[in-house]
C-alpha cells in the first residue's frame, strides 16, 4: 500500500469518525445526565434523515439550509420521548433497568413502523443537493464534500456543546443534575425540565447528524439500526456519559473501520470496530474516559 493510499484511507476514516462522534454524542449526553440508555437512538437518526428528505421535497431548499429546522424537530421529538415514555420508565419500582431497555426498544419499533407506514420500506435519497457527489482534490487525495461538511458540523457541534455546558445557566443546571439529582431540587431546579431539555438536546444533536447523513446515504426505515450499534460502541468505548470520550472514540471508530476495510473484505469492516470495542471494555469496563 502506497503512502498516498494510506493517507487517503486515514483521511476518509477521520471524516467518517467525526460524523460517528456526532451521532453518538447525544446518546452519551443523555446517559451522563440520567443513567438511561436510549435504545431508540438509531430511530431518532432515521427520522432525522426522513425529515430532511421530506423537507427537501416540500420546500425545494438544500439540506444544508434545512439542517437547523431538522435539529429543532428532533429537539421536540426527544423532549416528547422523555415526557411521554422515559419519565414513566424511571418511576418503575421493580426491574428499573429492564423497564428502561424495553420501553425505549418499544419506542424504537414503533418509530420504525411509523416510518414504514409514512414513507414505505423503499430506499430513498435526497436528490440534487449542493454538496452531493462533489469531491475535493487535495493533491491526489480525494475527499467527498458531504463528509467534509459533516465533519465540520460535528466539530462545530462539539464546540457549541462545550460552550453551552460551561457558559450558560442551562449547562450548569445540566451538570449539577448529573452530579446529584436530589440536591438540585433543593436549589430550585426542576429535575423533570432539565431531563426533558437534555433529551431534546441529545436528539437535536443526532438530528444534525441525520441531516448530514441524508446528503450522502440511502434512507430506509431500518437505516438507524446499523448506525445505532456503532453509536453504542462509540459511547461505550469513550465511556458512557463522557462528551469528550464520544469525540475521541468516534474518531478511533472511524479510523479503525477504514483500516479494517483495507485488510478484510468490505462486508466485515465493522468487525474490526467491534473487536476493538470488546478489547477495550474487557480491560477497562468503564471505557476510555468513563467513570464507574
Amino acid at each position, binding site marked *: 500500500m502506497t503512502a498516498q493510499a494510506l493517507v487517503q484511507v486515514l483521511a476518509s476514516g477521520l471524516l467518517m469518525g467525526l460524523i460517528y462522534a456526532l451521532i453518538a454524542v447525544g446518546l452519551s449526553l443523555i446517559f451522563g445526565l440520567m443513567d438511561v440508555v436510549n435504545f431508540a437512538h438509531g430511530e431518532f437518526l432515521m427520522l432525522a434523515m426522513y425529515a430532511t428528505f421530506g423537507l427537501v421535497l416540500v420546500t425545494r431548499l438544500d439540506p444544508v439550509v434545512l439542517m437547523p429546522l431538522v435539529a429543532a424537530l428532533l429537539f421536540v421529538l426527544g423532549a416528547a420521548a422523555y415526557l411521554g415514555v422515559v419519565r414513566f*420508565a424511571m418511576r418503575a419500582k421493580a426491574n428499573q433497568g429492564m423497564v428502561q431497555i424495553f420501553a425505549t426498544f418499544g419506542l424504537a419499533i414503533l418509530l420504525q413502523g411509523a416510518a414504514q407506514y409514512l414513507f414505505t420500506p423503499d430506499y430513498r435519497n435526497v436528490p440534487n443537493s449542493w454538496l452531493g457527489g462533489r469531491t475535493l482534490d487535495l493533491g491526489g487525495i480525494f475527499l467527498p464534500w458531504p463528509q467534509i461538511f459533516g465533519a465540520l458540523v460535528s466539530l462545530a457541534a462539539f464546540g457549541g456543546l462545550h460552550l453551552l455546558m460551561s457558559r450558560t445557566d442551562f449547562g450548569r443546571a445540566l451538570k449539577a443534575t448529573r452530579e446529584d439529582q436530589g440536591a438540585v431540587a433543593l436549589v430550585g431546579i426542576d429535575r423533570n425540565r432539565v431531563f426533558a431539555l437534555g433529551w431534546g438536546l441529545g436528539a437535536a444533536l443526532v438530528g444534525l447528524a441525520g441531516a448530514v447523513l441524508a446528503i450522502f446515504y440511502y434512507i430506509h426505515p431500518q437505516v438507524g439500526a446499523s448506525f445505532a450499534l456503532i453509536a453504542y460502541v462509540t459511547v*461505550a468505548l469513550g465511556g458512557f456519559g463522557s462528551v469528550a470520550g464520544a469525540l475521541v472514540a468516534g474518531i478511533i471508530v472511524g479510523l479503525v473501520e477504514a483500516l479494517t476495510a483495507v485488510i478484510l473484505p468490505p462486508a466485515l469492516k465493522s468487525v474490526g470496530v467491534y473487536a476493538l470495542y470488546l478489547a477495550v471494555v474487557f480491560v477497562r469496563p468503564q471505557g476510555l474516559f468513563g467513570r464507574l
Partner: protein
Amino acid sequence: MTAATTPLAPALARAEASHAARRRRKLIVAALVFAGLAALPYGLRDVYLQNVLILTLMYAALAQSWNILGGYCGQVSLGHALYFGAGAYATTVLFVTYGVLPWFGMLAGGLLSAAVALLLGYPCFRLAGHYFSIATIVIAEIGLLLVHNWDFVGGAMGIQWPFNPDSWWTLQFARDKVPYIHFAIAFLALVWFVTWLIEGSRWGYWWRAVKDDAQAAESLGVEVFRSKMAAAAVSAFFTAIGGGFYAAYVSYIDPESVMSFRFSLLFALPAVLGGIGTLWGPLVGAAILIPLTEISRSYLGGGGKGLDLMLYGILVMVVALARPEGVLSLFRPRKARAEEATP
C-alpha cells in the same frame, strides 16, 4: 447451644415441609398444564393456527431459557440469537453435510453453545448493567457477520434441508405438523422442569442473590462469578436446542433468519412481559405476545405498511411501563407476592 435451638427446630421442620409441599404442588400443576397442552393439537386442524401454536410454544421455551440467565441471575443478555444460531447451524450442517441425526446435532449445538457461553462469560461478566447488555449485542452481531461470510456454512445463501419422508428420526414432518407441536411441548416441559430444579437448588438461591445485589451476595460467600457462568451455560444450552428445533421445523436457514437481532429481543420479551424470574412468566408472556404479533402481521402487515410493527412497539412499551413485574403478578395474591420477595 442445643437448649437455645430446640424450640426452633419444630418450626423449622414445619416450614421446610410446607416449602417441599409447595414445590411438589407446582410440579403437579405443571404436569397437568403440559398434558392439557399435549391434547390441544387434536382439536386444532387449521395449519395456520398450528404454526402459531408451534411458534408460541417454542418462544415460551426459549424465553424460559433466556429467563434462567436474565430473570433468575439478572444478567440481561440481548445476544442470545448467537446461541440460537449456533444450535440451528450445528444441527443443519451436521445433518445436511454429514448425515448426523438432528437429535445429536441439537445436543452438539447445545454443548457448543454452552462452551461458547463460558468462553464469552469469562470477560463479559466483568461488565455490569448496560455495559453487559451492549457487549452481548455486539458479540452476536460479530457472529452474524462471520457466518455471513463463511462459505462452509452456506454464507449469505444459507442451507436448505433435503426433502425426506416424515419421520421422528430426522424430525421432518412435511404433511402433518402435529409432531412438531408435541416436540415443542416436550421441549418447553423440559426447560420448565430444569428451571424448577434450579429454583429449589442452592444455585437458584445464589443466582437470585446475585441478581438482587451482587456485592452483598459476594460478601455473604456467594460465588458470584461462578453463578453467572453456570446460568449462562445452562441458558445457552437450551437456547441452542431451540435453534436446532427451529431449523428442523422451517427446513431452511440463512444468517438473517436465525441470527438477527430481532431473535434476541424475541427471547427476552415474553419473559419480561410475563414476569422475569418466575416459572410461568415466559409461557404467559409468549401466549400473549406471539399470537398477537403473528396474527397482526397476517392482517396488518400486508404490503409492508408497518402497522403491525407500530402495534408491536406500542405493546412492548405499554407492557414495560404498566407492569414492570410482568402480567403474572396480576394474578397473585398480595401475601404470596410478599412471600416470594423474601425467600
